[in-house]
Protein backbone atom coordinates (compact mmCIF):
# COMPACT_ATOMS: atom_id res chain seq x y z
CA UNK A 1 0.00 0.00 0.00
CA UNK A 2 1.34 3.42 -0.86
CA UNK A 3 1.91 5.74 2.08
CA UNK A 4 0.65 8.54 -0.09
CA UNK A 5 -3.06 9.27 -0.06
CA UNK A 6 -4.92 10.31 -3.15
CA UNK A 7 -6.27 13.86 -2.84
CA UNK A 8 -9.80 12.75 -3.70
CA UNK A 9 -9.78 10.05 -1.03
CA UNK A 10 -8.20 12.43 1.44
CA UNK A 11 -11.00 14.95 0.96
CA UNK A 12 -13.67 12.25 1.08
CA UNK A 13 -12.34 10.83 4.30
CA UNK A 14 -11.77 14.26 5.66
CA UNK A 15 -15.37 15.25 5.14
CA UNK A 16 -16.58 12.02 6.65
CA UNK A 17 -14.58 12.35 9.82
CA UNK A 18 -14.43 16.05 10.32
CA UNK A 19 -11.13 16.66 8.63
CA UNK A 20 -11.66 20.27 7.76
CA UNK A 21 -9.79 22.07 5.07
CA UNK A 22 -9.42 25.73 5.94
CA UNK A 23 -6.72 27.84 4.42
CA UNK A 24 -4.75 24.74 3.58
CA UNK A 25 -4.98 23.35 7.10
CA UNK A 26 -6.28 19.94 8.05
CA UNK A 27 -7.91 19.03 11.33
CA UNK A 28 -9.14 15.59 12.26
CA UNK A 29 -11.75 16.28 14.90
CA UNK A 30 -13.66 13.57 16.70
CA UNK A 31 -15.12 16.07 19.12
CA UNK A 32 -18.91 16.33 19.19
CA UNK A 33 -19.31 19.57 21.10
CA UNK A 34 -17.83 22.93 21.82
CA UNK A 35 -14.51 23.01 23.61
CA UNK A 36 -16.28 24.28 26.69
CA UNK A 37 -19.86 23.47 27.39
CA UNK A 38 -21.63 26.73 26.66
CA UNK A 39 -24.33 26.30 29.29
CA UNK A 40 -21.70 25.63 31.94
CA UNK A 41 -24.00 23.02 33.37
CA UNK A 42 -21.28 20.46 32.91
CA UNK A 43 -17.73 20.69 34.19
CA UNK A 44 -14.77 21.00 31.83
CA UNK A 45 -12.81 18.54 33.93
CA UNK A 46 -14.12 15.72 36.09
CA UNK A 47 -11.67 14.12 38.52
CA UNK A 48 -12.76 11.21 40.67
CA UNK A 49 -10.61 9.52 43.29
CA UNK A 50 -11.08 6.28 45.18
CA UNK A 51 -9.66 2.79 45.59
CA UNK A 52 -11.78 1.29 42.81
CA UNK A 53 -10.26 2.74 39.66
CA UNK A 54 -12.91 1.29 37.39
CA UNK A 55 -15.66 3.03 39.37
CA UNK A 56 -13.65 6.26 39.32
CA UNK A 57 -13.60 6.14 35.52
CA UNK A 58 -17.31 5.46 35.28
CA UNK A 59 -18.12 8.34 37.61
CA UNK A 60 -15.74 10.79 35.91
CA UNK A 61 -17.43 10.23 32.54
CA UNK A 62 -20.83 10.49 34.15
CA UNK A 63 -19.92 13.86 35.69
CA UNK A 64 -18.86 15.03 32.27
CA UNK A 65 -22.31 14.39 30.89
CA UNK A 66 -22.28 10.66 30.35
CA UNK A 67 -20.72 8.47 27.72
CA UNK A 68 -23.57 9.14 25.27
CA UNK A 69 -22.23 12.67 24.91
CA UNK A 70 -19.14 11.22 23.28
CA UNK A 71 -20.07 7.83 21.83
CA UNK A 72 -23.09 7.64 19.51
CA UNK A 73 -24.96 4.40 19.08
CA UNK A 74 -23.48 2.07 16.45
CA UNK A 75 -20.28 4.07 16.31
CA UNK A 76 -16.84 2.65 15.81
CA UNK A 77 -14.58 3.67 18.68
CA UNK A 78 -10.80 3.87 18.63
CA UNK A 79 -9.04 3.89 22.00
CA UNK A 80 -5.42 4.94 22.45
CA UNK A 81 -3.96 3.66 25.71
CA UNK A 82 -0.35 4.09 26.82
CA UNK A 83 1.56 0.80 26.80
CA UNK A 84 5.04 2.23 26.61
CA UNK A 85 6.53 0.07 29.32
CA UNK A 86 5.47 -2.61 31.77
CA UNK A 87 7.11 -0.88 34.72
CA UNK A 88 4.58 0.12 37.38
CA UNK A 89 3.09 3.57 36.97
CA UNK A 90 4.06 3.89 33.31
CA UNK A 91 1.06 2.42 31.48
CA UNK A 92 -2.68 2.99 31.46
CA UNK A 93 -4.38 1.13 34.29
CA UNK A 94 -6.17 -2.04 33.14
CA UNK A 95 -9.10 -1.12 35.42
CA UNK A 96 -9.51 2.27 33.75
CA UNK A 97 -9.29 0.71 30.30
CA UNK A 98 -11.88 -1.89 31.30
CA UNK A 99 -14.24 0.90 32.36
CA UNK A 100 -13.76 2.74 29.08
CA UNK A 101 -14.57 -0.34 27.01
CA UNK A 102 -17.65 -1.09 29.12
CA UNK A 103 -18.81 2.51 28.79
CA UNK A 104 -18.51 2.32 25.01
CA UNK A 105 -20.52 -0.91 24.99
CA UNK A 106 -23.09 0.69 27.27
CA UNK A 107 -23.48 3.53 24.77
CA UNK A 108 -24.12 1.03 22.01
CA UNK A 109 -20.82 1.25 20.18
CA UNK A 110 -20.68 -1.17 17.29
CA UNK A 111 -16.96 -1.66 17.53
CA UNK A 112 -14.31 -0.86 20.13
CA UNK A 113 -10.74 -1.05 18.87
CA UNK A 114 -7.52 -0.54 20.79
CA UNK A 115 -5.02 0.95 18.35
CA UNK A 116 -1.29 0.62 18.88
CA UNK A 117 2.01 0.31 17.09
CA UNK A 118 3.63 -0.97 20.27
CA UNK A 119 4.53 -4.66 20.39
CA UNK A 120 2.24 -7.39 21.72
CA UNK A 121 4.66 -8.09 24.57
CA UNK A 122 3.88 -4.69 26.09
CA UNK A 123 0.13 -5.36 25.90
CA UNK A 124 0.51 -8.77 27.46
CA UNK A 125 2.90 -7.85 30.24
CA UNK A 126 0.79 -4.85 31.29
CA UNK A 127 -2.38 -6.94 31.48
CA UNK A 128 -4.09 -4.69 28.94
CA UNK A 129 -4.36 -7.42 26.29
CA UNK A 130 -6.24 -9.57 28.77
CA UNK A 131 -8.68 -6.74 29.50
CA UNK A 132 -9.29 -6.29 25.78
CA UNK A 133 -10.01 -9.99 25.35
CA UNK A 134 -12.25 -10.19 28.41
CA UNK A 135 -14.27 -7.14 27.38
CA UNK A 136 -14.58 -8.03 23.71
CA UNK A 137 -12.53 -5.12 22.39
CA UNK A 138 -10.27 -5.73 19.43
CA UNK A 139 -6.57 -5.15 19.86
CA UNK A 140 -5.34 -3.80 16.54
CA UNK A 141 -1.57 -3.86 16.53
CA UNK A 142 -0.17 -1.91 13.61
CA UNK A 143 3.21 -2.66 12.08
CA UNK A 144 5.59 0.29 12.19
CA UNK A 145 5.71 0.28 8.39
CA UNK A 146 5.24 3.84 7.11
CA UNK A 147 2.63 2.52 4.67
CA UNK A 148 0.30 2.18 7.65
CA UNK A 149 0.39 5.91 8.30
CA UNK A 150 -1.19 8.74 6.37
CA UNK A 151 0.50 12.08 5.75
CA UNK A 152 -1.48 14.97 7.20
CA UNK A 153 -0.20 18.51 6.69
CA UNK A 154 0.24 20.56 9.85
CA UNK A 155 -0.57 24.01 8.58
CA UNK A 156 -0.09 25.71 11.93
CA UNK A 157 3.03 23.72 12.71
CA UNK A 158 6.18 25.49 13.82
CA UNK A 159 8.34 22.41 14.42
CA UNK A 160 6.21 19.89 12.55
CA UNK A 161 5.05 20.45 8.98
CA UNK A 162 3.52 17.03 8.41
CA UNK A 163 2.10 14.43 10.75
CA UNK A 164 1.75 10.78 9.78
CA UNK A 165 -1.43 9.49 11.35
CA UNK A 166 -2.46 5.84 11.64
CA UNK A 167 -4.56 4.97 8.60
CA UNK A 168 -6.88 2.91 10.70
CA UNK A 169 -7.85 5.86 12.87
CA UNK A 170 -9.73 7.25 9.87
CA UNK A 171 -11.99 4.21 9.96
CA UNK A 172 -13.45 5.25 13.32
CA UNK A 173 -16.13 7.72 14.37
CA UNK A 174 -14.96 8.24 17.94
CA UNK A 175 -11.46 8.57 19.36
CA UNK A 176 -10.88 8.19 23.10
CA UNK A 177 -7.43 9.25 24.25
CA UNK A 178 -6.38 7.31 27.37
CA UNK A 179 -2.93 8.28 28.59
CA UNK A 180 -1.41 7.73 31.96
CA UNK A 181 -0.07 11.01 33.27
CA UNK A 182 3.56 10.77 34.39
CA UNK A 183 7.00 12.31 34.48
CA UNK A 184 9.10 12.71 31.36
CA UNK A 185 12.85 13.18 31.50
CA UNK A 186 12.75 15.47 28.47
CA UNK A 187 9.79 17.78 28.79
CA UNK A 188 8.91 16.91 32.41
CA UNK A 189 5.32 15.83 31.77
CA UNK A 190 3.30 13.29 29.82
CA UNK A 191 -0.45 13.51 29.44
CA UNK A 192 -3.15 13.80 26.81
CA UNK A 193 -1.16 15.74 24.24
CA UNK A 194 2.02 13.72 24.34
CA UNK A 195 -0.01 10.52 24.13
CA UNK A 196 -1.04 11.47 20.61
CA UNK A 197 2.46 10.50 19.53
CA UNK A 198 0.93 7.02 19.78
CA UNK A 199 -1.15 7.62 16.66
CA UNK A 200 1.69 9.30 14.79
CA UNK A 201 4.25 7.11 13.06
CA UNK A 202 7.42 6.21 14.99
CA UNK A 203 9.52 7.58 12.13
CA UNK A 204 7.70 10.90 12.29
CA UNK A 205 7.94 10.94 16.08
CA UNK A 206 11.66 10.54 15.79
CA UNK A 207 11.77 13.84 13.93
CA UNK A 208 10.34 15.47 17.06
CA UNK A 209 13.76 14.83 18.55
CA UNK A 210 16.53 16.80 16.95
CA UNK A 211 19.38 14.88 15.28
CA UNK A 212 22.34 13.42 17.17
CA UNK A 213 20.37 13.10 20.38
CA UNK A 214 20.78 16.73 21.30
CA UNK A 215 19.45 17.27 24.75
CA UNK A 216 19.82 20.97 25.28
CA UNK A 217 17.04 23.44 25.95
CA UNK A 218 16.52 24.18 22.26
CA UNK A 219 15.99 20.51 21.50
CA UNK A 220 13.47 20.14 24.32
CA UNK A 221 11.61 23.25 23.15
CA UNK A 222 11.54 21.77 19.63
CA UNK A 223 10.06 18.54 20.97
CA UNK A 224 7.41 20.38 22.96
CA UNK A 225 6.47 22.53 19.98
CA UNK A 226 6.20 19.43 17.77
CA UNK A 227 3.81 17.79 20.24
CA UNK A 228 1.65 20.92 20.34
CA UNK A 229 1.78 21.05 16.53
CA UNK A 230 0.65 17.43 16.25
CA UNK A 231 -2.31 18.22 18.47
CA UNK A 232 -3.50 20.87 16.01
CA UNK A 233 -4.44 18.18 13.49
CA UNK A 234 -6.16 15.62 15.70
CA UNK A 235 -8.71 16.32 18.40
CA UNK A 236 -9.95 13.34 20.45
CA UNK A 237 -13.62 12.98 21.36
CA UNK A 238 -12.72 12.44 24.99
CA UNK A 239 -9.62 12.29 27.12
CA UNK A 240 -9.81 9.81 29.96
CA UNK A 241 -6.60 10.04 31.94
CA UNK A 242 -5.23 7.51 34.36
CA UNK A 243 -3.87 9.50 37.31
CA UNK A 244 -4.28 6.65 39.76
CA UNK A 245 -0.66 5.55 40.27
CA UNK A 246 2.13 7.04 38.21
CA UNK A 247 5.84 7.76 38.24
CA UNK A 248 7.09 11.24 39.06
CA UNK A 249 10.77 10.47 38.43
CA UNK A 250 12.60 8.56 35.67
CA UNK A 251 9.74 9.01 33.24
CA UNK A 252 8.43 8.03 30.86
CA UNK A 253 9.86 4.54 31.20
CA UNK A 254 10.61 4.07 34.89
CA UNK A 255 11.06 2.54 37.30
CA UNK A 256 10.67 5.61 39.45
CA UNK A 257 8.99 7.16 42.45
CA UNK A 258 5.28 6.31 42.46
CA UNK A 259 2.63 8.88 43.32
CA UNK A 260 -0.86 7.49 44.05
CA UNK A 261 -3.59 10.13 43.84
CA UNK A 262 -5.97 7.29 42.80
CA UNK A 263 -7.69 9.67 40.38
CA UNK A 264 -9.26 9.29 36.99
CA UNK A 265 -9.52 12.57 35.11
CA UNK A 266 -11.86 13.19 32.18
CA UNK A 267 -12.23 16.15 29.86
CA UNK A 268 -12.33 17.34 26.29
CA UNK A 269 -9.88 20.23 26.60
CA UNK A 270 -6.43 18.64 26.45
CA UNK A 271 -4.59 21.71 27.70
CA UNK A 272 -6.83 22.07 30.74
CA UNK A 273 -6.72 18.36 31.52
CA UNK A 274 -2.94 18.29 31.23
CA UNK A 275 -2.59 21.41 33.39
CA UNK A 276 -4.79 19.75 36.02
CA UNK A 277 -2.84 16.47 35.94
CA UNK A 278 0.50 18.29 36.12
CA UNK A 279 -0.73 20.13 39.19
CA UNK A 280 -1.16 16.77 40.95
CA UNK A 281 2.57 16.69 41.48
CA UNK A 282 3.28 20.36 41.78
CA UNK A 283 4.02 21.31 38.19
CA UNK A 284 2.60 24.52 36.77
CA UNK A 285 2.04 25.59 33.20
CA UNK A 286 5.24 27.65 33.50
CA UNK A 287 7.17 24.42 34.01
CA UNK A 288 5.89 22.73 30.85
CA UNK A 289 6.73 24.32 27.50
CA UNK A 290 4.34 21.97 25.67
CA UNK A 291 1.34 23.45 27.50
CA UNK A 292 2.43 26.99 26.71
CA UNK A 293 2.85 26.16 23.03
CA UNK A 294 -0.53 24.38 22.92
CA UNK A 295 -2.19 27.40 24.49
CA UNK A 296 -0.55 29.60 21.85
CA UNK A 297 -2.12 27.35 19.23
CA UNK A 298 -5.49 27.93 20.89
CA UNK A 299 -5.89 24.28 21.75
CA UNK A 300 -7.33 24.92 25.18
CA UNK A 301 -7.28 26.73 28.47
CA UNK A 302 -4.08 26.46 30.53
CA UNK A 303 -5.37 28.59 33.41
CA UNK A 304 -7.15 26.28 35.83
CA UNK A 305 -8.84 29.26 37.48
CA UNK A 306 -10.80 29.69 34.26
CA UNK A 307 -11.84 26.05 34.04
CA UNK A 308 -14.77 24.44 35.78
CA UNK A 309 -13.46 21.44 37.68
CA UNK A 310 -15.63 18.89 39.40
CA UNK A 311 -13.73 16.76 41.91
CA UNK A 312 -15.23 13.83 43.76
CA UNK A 313 -14.03 11.16 46.11
CA UNK A 314 -15.74 7.76 46.15
Amino acid at each position, binding site marked *: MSPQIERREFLKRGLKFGLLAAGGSAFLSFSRGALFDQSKSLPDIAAVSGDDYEKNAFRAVELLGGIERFVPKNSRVAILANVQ*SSHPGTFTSPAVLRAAIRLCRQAGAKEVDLLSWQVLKNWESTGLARVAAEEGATLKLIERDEANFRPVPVAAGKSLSEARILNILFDHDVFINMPITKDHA*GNRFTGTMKNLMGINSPASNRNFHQPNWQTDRTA*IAFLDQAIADLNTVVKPSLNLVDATEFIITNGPFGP*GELLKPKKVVAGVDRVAVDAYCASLWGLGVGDIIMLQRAAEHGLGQPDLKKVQIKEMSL
Partner: protein
Amino acid sequence: MAHVAPQALAQGRALLDLLPEPSELGAWSKDGEPQFFEGEDLYIYIDGGAEIYQEYGFLRVIVQDYKSEAGVRLSLEVFEMRSPASAYGMFTFKRSPRGLALDLGDEGQLADYYLNFCKGRFLVTITALDPEESANSEILAVGRAVNLRLNEAGTRPGLVSILTEEDLLEPSVKFFRGPLGVSNSEPLLAGLAAGIENGVKGDYVSGGTVFVLEYPDAESSEEKMAQAKDIFSDLRGFDRFGVSGRVLSSRDPKGRSIFARLEGNFLAFVIGDIDRDEACALLDRVTVRLKTLPKVP
Protein backbone atom coordinates in the same frame (compact mmCIF):
# COMPACT_ATOMS: atom_id res chain seq x y z
CA MET B 1 17.34 -12.63 21.17
CA ALA B 2 14.85 -10.13 19.82
CA HIS B 3 15.95 -7.01 17.92
CA VAL B 4 19.53 -8.15 17.29
CA ALA B 5 21.22 -6.75 14.21
CA PRO B 6 23.93 -9.08 12.85
CA GLN B 7 26.76 -6.66 13.60
CA ALA B 8 25.60 -6.45 17.19
CA LEU B 9 25.47 -10.18 17.75
CA ALA B 10 28.88 -10.41 19.42
CA GLN B 11 28.07 -7.66 21.89
CA GLY B 12 24.66 -9.22 22.47
CA ARG B 13 26.24 -12.57 23.29
CA ALA B 14 28.54 -10.90 25.78
CA LEU B 15 25.56 -9.34 27.52
CA LEU B 16 23.69 -12.65 27.43
CA ASP B 17 26.39 -14.07 29.68
CA LEU B 18 25.36 -11.56 32.34
CA LEU B 19 21.85 -12.97 32.67
CA PRO B 20 21.46 -15.32 35.64
CA GLU B 21 20.19 -18.78 34.87
CA PRO B 22 17.05 -19.98 36.67
CA SER B 23 19.18 -22.57 38.50
CA GLU B 24 20.91 -19.68 40.31
CA LEU B 25 17.59 -18.16 41.36
CA GLY B 26 15.63 -20.99 42.92
CA ALA B 27 11.99 -21.14 41.89
CA TRP B 28 12.28 -18.68 39.02
CA SER B 29 12.24 -19.13 35.28
CA LYS B 30 12.97 -16.84 32.37
CA ASP B 31 9.78 -15.29 31.04
CA GLY B 32 10.14 -14.93 27.28
CA GLU B 33 13.17 -14.24 25.16
CA PRO B 34 15.79 -11.61 26.06
CA GLN B 35 15.64 -8.35 24.15
CA PHE B 36 18.76 -6.54 22.97
CA PHE B 37 19.02 -2.94 21.80
CA GLU B 38 22.07 -1.02 20.68
CA GLY B 39 22.82 2.63 19.94
CA GLU B 40 19.90 4.63 18.61
CA ASP B 41 17.70 1.51 18.63
CA LEU B 42 17.23 2.24 22.31
CA TYR B 43 14.45 4.47 20.99
CA ILE B 44 12.51 1.32 20.11
CA TYR B 45 12.73 0.03 23.66
CA ILE B 46 12.49 3.27 25.61
CA ASP B 47 10.16 5.04 23.25
CA GLY B 48 10.27 8.75 23.96
CA GLY B 49 12.69 8.48 26.86
CA ALA B 50 15.97 7.34 25.39
CA GLU B 51 17.62 10.76 25.27
CA ILE B 52 18.77 10.76 28.87
CA TYR B 53 20.54 7.43 28.40
CA GLN B 54 22.15 8.72 25.22
CA GLU B 55 23.30 11.85 27.03
CA TYR B 56 25.04 9.75 29.65
CA GLY B 57 26.73 7.57 27.01
CA PHE B 58 24.56 4.54 26.23
CA LEU B 59 26.05 1.66 24.22
CA ARG B 60 23.64 -1.28 24.53
CA VAL B 61 21.14 -3.01 26.82
CA ILE B 62 19.85 -6.51 27.37
CA VAL B 63 16.44 -7.07 28.96
CA GLN B 64 15.15 -10.31 30.43
CA ASP B 65 11.95 -10.90 32.39
CA TYR B 66 11.72 -13.59 35.07
CA LYS B 67 8.69 -15.25 36.62
CA SER B 68 8.34 -17.13 39.90
CA GLU B 69 6.26 -20.27 40.41
CA ALA B 70 3.80 -18.06 42.27
CA GLY B 71 3.47 -15.79 39.23
CA VAL B 72 5.53 -12.86 40.56
CA ARG B 73 7.32 -11.11 37.71
CA LEU B 74 10.64 -9.26 37.58
CA SER B 75 12.31 -7.35 34.79
CA LEU B 76 16.11 -7.27 34.58
CA GLU B 77 17.86 -4.62 32.46
CA VAL B 78 21.63 -4.54 32.07
CA PHE B 79 22.82 -1.34 30.41
CA GLU B 80 26.36 -1.15 29.06
CA MET B 81 27.47 2.47 29.13
CA ARG B 82 30.48 4.18 27.59
CA SER B 83 32.48 4.51 30.81
CA PRO B 84 32.22 3.92 34.57
CA ALA B 85 31.42 7.64 34.91
CA SER B 86 28.52 7.20 32.48
CA ALA B 87 27.17 4.23 34.42
CA TYR B 88 27.59 5.98 37.75
CA GLY B 89 25.88 9.09 36.40
CA MET B 90 22.89 7.15 35.10
CA PHE B 91 22.73 5.32 38.43
CA THR B 92 22.51 8.62 40.30
CA PHE B 93 19.89 9.89 37.84
CA LYS B 94 17.68 6.84 38.37
CA ARG B 95 18.05 6.21 42.08
CA SER B 96 15.35 7.22 44.51
CA PRO B 97 15.84 10.05 47.01
CA ARG B 98 14.42 7.70 49.64
CA GLY B 99 15.94 4.30 48.87
CA LEU B 100 18.11 2.00 50.92
CA ALA B 101 21.85 2.03 50.09
CA LEU B 102 23.19 -1.45 49.29
CA ASP B 103 26.61 -3.01 49.34
CA LEU B 104 26.20 -4.18 45.76
CA GLY B 105 28.42 -3.42 42.79
CA ASP B 106 30.24 -0.10 42.98
CA GLU B 107 27.10 1.50 44.43
CA GLY B 108 23.59 0.18 44.76
CA GLN B 109 20.19 1.12 46.07
CA LEU B 110 16.93 -0.69 46.78
CA ALA B 111 13.76 1.43 46.45
CA ASP B 112 10.10 0.49 46.95
CA TYR B 113 9.84 -1.98 44.11
CA TYR B 114 13.09 -1.65 42.19
CA LEU B 115 16.83 -1.87 42.53
CA ASN B 116 19.62 -0.06 40.71
CA PHE B 117 23.34 -0.67 40.95
CA CYS B 118 26.35 0.29 38.88
CA LYS B 119 29.55 -1.65 38.44
CA GLY B 120 32.27 -0.53 36.07
CA ARG B 121 30.61 0.43 32.78
CA PHE B 122 27.36 -1.34 33.64
CA LEU B 123 24.12 -0.13 35.15
CA VAL B 124 21.71 -2.80 36.35
CA THR B 125 18.02 -2.15 37.01
CA ILE B 126 15.68 -4.80 38.42
CA THR B 127 11.99 -3.99 38.70
CA ALA B 128 9.11 -5.88 40.29
CA LEU B 129 6.37 -5.68 37.69
CA ASP B 130 3.64 -6.34 40.24
CA PRO B 131 4.57 -3.92 43.05
CA GLU B 132 1.70 -5.01 45.25
CA GLU B 133 3.55 -8.32 45.66
CA SER B 134 6.59 -7.85 47.88
CA ALA B 135 9.54 -9.12 45.91
CA ASN B 136 12.49 -7.36 47.50
CA SER B 137 14.31 -10.57 48.46
CA GLU B 138 13.91 -11.88 44.91
CA ILE B 139 15.08 -8.56 43.45
CA LEU B 140 18.15 -8.73 45.66
CA ALA B 141 18.84 -12.33 44.67
CA VAL B 142 18.80 -11.43 40.98
CA GLY B 143 20.98 -8.39 41.67
CA ARG B 144 23.58 -10.43 43.51
CA ALA B 145 23.63 -13.04 40.74
CA VAL B 146 24.28 -10.37 38.09
CA ASN B 147 26.88 -8.71 40.31
CA LEU B 148 28.85 -11.96 40.46
CA ARG B 149 28.94 -12.08 36.67
CA LEU B 150 30.26 -8.55 36.24
CA ASN B 151 34.04 -8.66 36.36
CA GLU B 152 34.90 -5.01 36.44
CA ALA B 153 34.71 -2.13 38.85
CA GLY B 154 34.61 1.64 38.73
CA THR B 155 35.09 4.55 41.05
CA ARG B 156 33.08 7.71 41.54
CA PRO B 157 34.01 10.51 39.15
CA GLY B 158 36.34 12.99 40.84
CA LEU B 159 33.89 15.87 40.46
CA VAL B 160 31.56 14.21 42.98
CA SER B 161 34.24 14.64 45.64
CA ILE B 162 33.80 18.41 45.61
CA LEU B 163 30.54 17.92 47.53
CA THR B 164 31.68 18.12 51.11
CA GLU B 165 30.29 15.23 53.12
CA GLU B 166 29.16 17.19 56.16
CA ASP B 167 25.34 17.54 56.15
CA LEU B 168 25.14 16.16 52.59
CA LEU B 169 22.02 14.11 51.84
CA GLU B 170 23.76 11.29 49.99
CA PRO B 171 20.86 9.87 47.89
CA SER B 172 20.34 13.34 46.45
CA VAL B 173 23.75 13.34 44.77
CA LYS B 174 23.54 13.31 40.98
CA PHE B 175 26.36 13.30 38.47
CA PHE B 176 25.57 14.88 35.08
CA ARG B 177 27.04 14.49 31.60
CA GLY B 178 24.81 16.94 29.78
CA PRO B 179 22.09 19.56 30.01
CA LEU B 180 19.10 17.21 30.11
CA GLY B 181 20.16 15.69 33.41
CA VAL B 182 20.76 19.15 34.88
CA SER B 183 17.45 20.58 33.67
CA ASN B 184 15.60 17.61 35.14
CA SER B 185 17.04 18.42 38.54
CA GLU B 186 16.87 22.20 38.21
CA PRO B 187 15.06 23.74 35.22
CA LEU B 188 16.45 27.14 36.21
CA LEU B 189 19.89 25.99 35.05
CA ALA B 190 18.70 24.46 31.75
CA GLY B 191 20.18 27.19 29.57
CA LEU B 192 23.38 27.50 31.57
CA ALA B 193 24.00 23.76 31.34
CA ALA B 194 24.27 23.78 27.53
CA GLY B 195 27.80 22.78 26.57
CA ILE B 196 28.88 21.35 29.91
CA GLU B 197 31.29 18.45 30.08
CA ASN B 198 30.15 17.27 33.50
CA GLY B 199 28.18 18.43 36.48
CA VAL B 200 27.25 17.42 39.98
CA LYS B 201 24.49 18.21 42.43
CA GLY B 202 23.79 17.52 46.08
CA ASP B 203 21.20 18.60 48.65
CA TYR B 204 22.29 19.75 52.11
CA VAL B 205 20.50 19.62 55.42
CA SER B 206 20.73 23.43 55.54
CA GLY B 207 18.14 23.62 52.75
CA GLY B 208 20.57 24.55 50.01
CA THR B 209 21.36 22.53 46.92
CA VAL B 210 24.83 22.77 45.41
CA PHE B 211 25.25 22.51 41.65
CA VAL B 212 28.66 22.57 39.98
CA LEU B 213 28.85 22.72 36.20
CA GLU B 214 32.11 22.01 34.39
CA TYR B 215 32.77 23.68 31.02
CA PRO B 216 35.48 22.81 28.49
CA ASP B 217 37.51 25.96 29.20
CA ALA B 218 37.56 29.18 31.20
CA GLU B 219 36.25 31.20 28.27
CA SER B 220 33.06 29.10 28.21
CA SER B 221 32.53 29.32 31.96
CA GLU B 222 33.03 33.10 31.92
CA GLU B 223 30.50 33.39 29.11
CA LYS B 224 28.00 31.34 31.12
CA MET B 225 28.63 33.46 34.21
CA ALA B 226 27.75 36.54 32.16
CA GLN B 227 24.61 34.73 30.98
CA ALA B 228 23.73 33.86 34.57
CA LYS B 229 24.08 37.51 35.50
CA ASP B 230 21.66 38.47 32.72
CA ILE B 231 19.12 35.85 33.78
CA PHE B 232 19.26 36.60 37.48
CA SER B 233 19.18 40.36 37.09
CA ASP B 234 16.85 40.93 34.15
CA LEU B 235 14.35 38.13 33.76
CA ARG B 236 10.83 38.70 34.95
CA GLY B 237 10.19 37.27 38.37
CA PHE B 238 13.78 37.46 39.59
CA ASP B 239 14.60 40.06 42.20
CA ARG B 240 17.15 41.06 44.87
CA PHE B 241 20.00 40.79 42.38
CA GLY B 242 23.40 41.73 43.74
CA VAL B 243 27.12 41.15 43.37
CA SER B 244 29.31 40.91 46.43
CA GLY B 245 32.95 39.99 45.97
CA ARG B 246 32.97 36.97 43.62
CA VAL B 247 29.41 35.90 44.35
CA LEU B 248 26.27 36.75 42.35
CA SER B 249 23.02 36.54 44.25
CA SER B 250 19.36 36.77 43.33
CA ARG B 251 15.95 35.34 44.17
CA ASP B 252 13.97 33.29 41.67
CA PRO B 253 10.23 33.50 40.89
CA LYS B 254 9.57 30.70 43.40
CA GLY B 255 11.21 32.75 46.14
CA ARG B 256 14.34 30.63 46.39
CA SER B 257 17.72 32.25 46.95
CA ILE B 258 20.37 31.74 44.29
CA PHE B 259 24.11 32.25 44.71
CA ALA B 260 26.63 31.71 41.90
CA ARG B 261 30.41 31.80 41.72
CA LEU B 262 32.92 31.33 38.91
CA GLU B 263 36.02 29.21 39.53
CA GLY B 264 38.20 28.41 36.50
CA ASN B 265 36.26 26.11 34.17
CA PHE B 266 33.48 25.75 36.70
CA LEU B 267 30.34 27.53 37.79
CA ALA B 268 29.14 26.72 41.30
CA PHE B 269 25.61 27.47 42.50
CA VAL B 270 23.76 27.24 45.77
CA ILE B 271 19.98 27.32 45.35
CA GLY B 272 17.28 27.02 47.98
CA ASP B 273 15.85 28.34 51.19
CA ILE B 274 19.22 29.25 52.66
CA ASP B 275 20.77 32.43 54.04
CA ARG B 276 23.70 34.19 52.49
CA ASP B 277 26.32 33.22 55.10
CA GLU B 278 25.54 29.53 54.85
CA ALA B 279 25.44 29.64 51.06
CA CYS B 280 28.79 31.43 50.84
CA ALA B 281 30.32 28.96 53.27
CA LEU B 282 29.15 26.10 51.03
CA LEU B 283 30.53 27.85 47.94
CA ASP B 284 33.88 28.39 49.71
CA ARG B 285 34.16 24.72 50.62
CA VAL B 286 33.27 23.64 47.09
CA THR B 287 35.68 25.98 45.35
CA VAL B 288 38.59 24.95 47.58
CA ARG B 289 38.09 21.38 46.41
CA LEU B 290 37.61 22.40 42.77
CA LYS B 291 41.15 23.74 42.67
CA THR B 292 42.62 20.28 43.26
CA LEU B 293 40.20 18.29 41.15
CA PRO B 294 41.42 15.51 38.83
CA LYS B 295 39.93 15.45 35.30
CA VAL B 296 36.93 13.13 34.75
CA PRO B 297 37.73 10.48 32.08
